[in-house]
């Protein structure tokens, strides 16, 4: 059964330096507040797994928390580059960033394999691309029935998976809806999981399109209103598209980035 914790306690007790941590949420419900808490607690040498690294990874990378990134699309959606991500790869600032790079379909299937208790998943993909050459977690596999050659991707099983959801009840059952992305697979592939939620309620009312994660599949739940801003939580608040555009300027310059983090993450609790 999931334990109800504070965000601070959840990150402190469930995460360790050197861990592999998945932070998921496909555009929607990105666990930004949890990312900030990881920065505040000063974790190091993390391997971060995330399809779309987004601002959350740009901040973690820029603050030196990440030694390796497993990802499939590292941009600021609709805006352009992730400057801290680029700076780490192109210039090694603040430290060298190792990468294991996939397509969305490939990293998705790595989560699916992890959630399924399998060491790999089978898919069509990668053939003829440079991705196949550089990733150690992609390999050919032959169909035992047809002889056709397909691609296997290795399961990912993070030490900790973190997602944000709309609601949980007091028993720790979690409910999310809208674009639910890869969140279920992220939680299920994790050896442990932490779910931040907009609110903890007495009873989860069914909602069209909802995904319910029963309490026994979740390690801990923390109530963090606004926990995915500037991303959004359907039914609670909208995506702050203006901030995504503003981030391009903030993050382009190291000092301005550091000042923003100092002001908005280290001093505050958000």
């Amino acid at each position, binding site marked *: 059964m999931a334990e109800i914790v504070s965000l601070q306690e959840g990150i402190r007790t469930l995460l360790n330096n050197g861990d592999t941590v998945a932070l998921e949420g496909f555009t929607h419900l990105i666990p930004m507040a949890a990312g900030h808490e990881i920065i505040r607690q000063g974790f190091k040498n993390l391997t971060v797994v995330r399809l779309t690294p987004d601002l959350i990874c740009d901040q973690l990378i820029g603050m030196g928390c990440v030694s390796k990134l497993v990802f499939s699309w590292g941009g600021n959606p609709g805006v352009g580059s992730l400057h801290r991500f680029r700076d780490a790869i192109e210039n090694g600032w603040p430290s060298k960033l190792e990468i294991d790079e996939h397509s969305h379909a490939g990293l998705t299937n790595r989560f699916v394999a992890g959630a399924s208790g399998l060491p790999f998943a089978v898919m*069509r993909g990668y053939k003829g691309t440079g991705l196949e050459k550089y990733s150690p977690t992609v390999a050919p596999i032959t169909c035992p029935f047809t002889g056709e050659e397909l691609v296997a991707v290795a399961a990912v099983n993070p030490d900790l998976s973190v997602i944000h959801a709309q609601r949980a009840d007091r028993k720790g059952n979690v409910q999310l809806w809208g674009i639910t992305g890869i969140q279920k697979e992220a939680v299920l592939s994790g050896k442990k999981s932490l779910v931040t939620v907009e609110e903890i309620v007495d009873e989860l009312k069914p909602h069209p399109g909802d995904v319910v994660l029963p309490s026994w599949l979740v390690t801990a739940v923390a109530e963090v209103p606004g926990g995915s801003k500037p991303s959004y939580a359907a039914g609670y608040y909208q995506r702050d598209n203006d901030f995504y555009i503003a981030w391009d300027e903030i993050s382009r310059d190291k000092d301005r980035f550091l000042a923003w983090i100092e002001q908005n993450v280290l001093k505050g609790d958000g």
Partner: protein
Amino acid sequence: MVEQLQYTSDEMMSIAAARQLKDGQVCFIGIGLPSKAANLARRLHAPNLTMIYESGTLGAKPTVLPLSIGDGELAETADAVVSVPEIFNYLLQPGRIDVGFLGAAQIDKFANLNSTVIGDYKTPKVRLPGAGGAPEIAGACKDVIIMLRQSTKSFVDQIPFITSVGYGSGAQDRAKLGLRGGGPSIVITDLGILEPDPFTKELVLTQVHPNVEIATVVKNKTGWDLRVAEEIKVTEPPSKEELEAIRSLKSAGK
């Protein structure tokens, strides 16, 4: 005398792309030019176009152009919202999508795309966002439409990294690689249209937009020795209706 309408080369490019879409088709689209072109087509001649964004929104009908592939309005207006594994495994991979729309940083003469790095992979000059959904869109869709502004920096003889396969090194490669979609049928640029030669699959300039010189495209805007079709067409300029529609498209967050 016919009224002379003013328009930008980007508007021409989006309108040319929108014209490629047929009503009733199912399209897999990314943000930016593809999303603009598809939303434009839906407001013009293709009201029953089904737009799929890789966030899992099937049949989204946004009133403003989304900033991200996961904007809330896409989910709110969709016929269905499915998980990301379903989008890739159940819908894209089996070849159910009619048209995949792709952009990129660079393209080569066999319509292979690079959206990963400029320079060496391990020590890149410019690190780009990477693959996203593109490799499997390029592999699996029945048809692929590529949109890319044309220059010697983007249309290059040799791309440093193949993110998405067009035709590999020629006509036989897609079959050899087991790619079951049809491959790119058209590349739409701000200057004109390129199509793969039916036999060699090398891209050929088949159309230029109004007031674009063929020689300029070949000599100053393409990084390889671009073949030109024997009978080259000139794109029909945007109509008043098309320009009104494109200018009425509002963007989220801008």
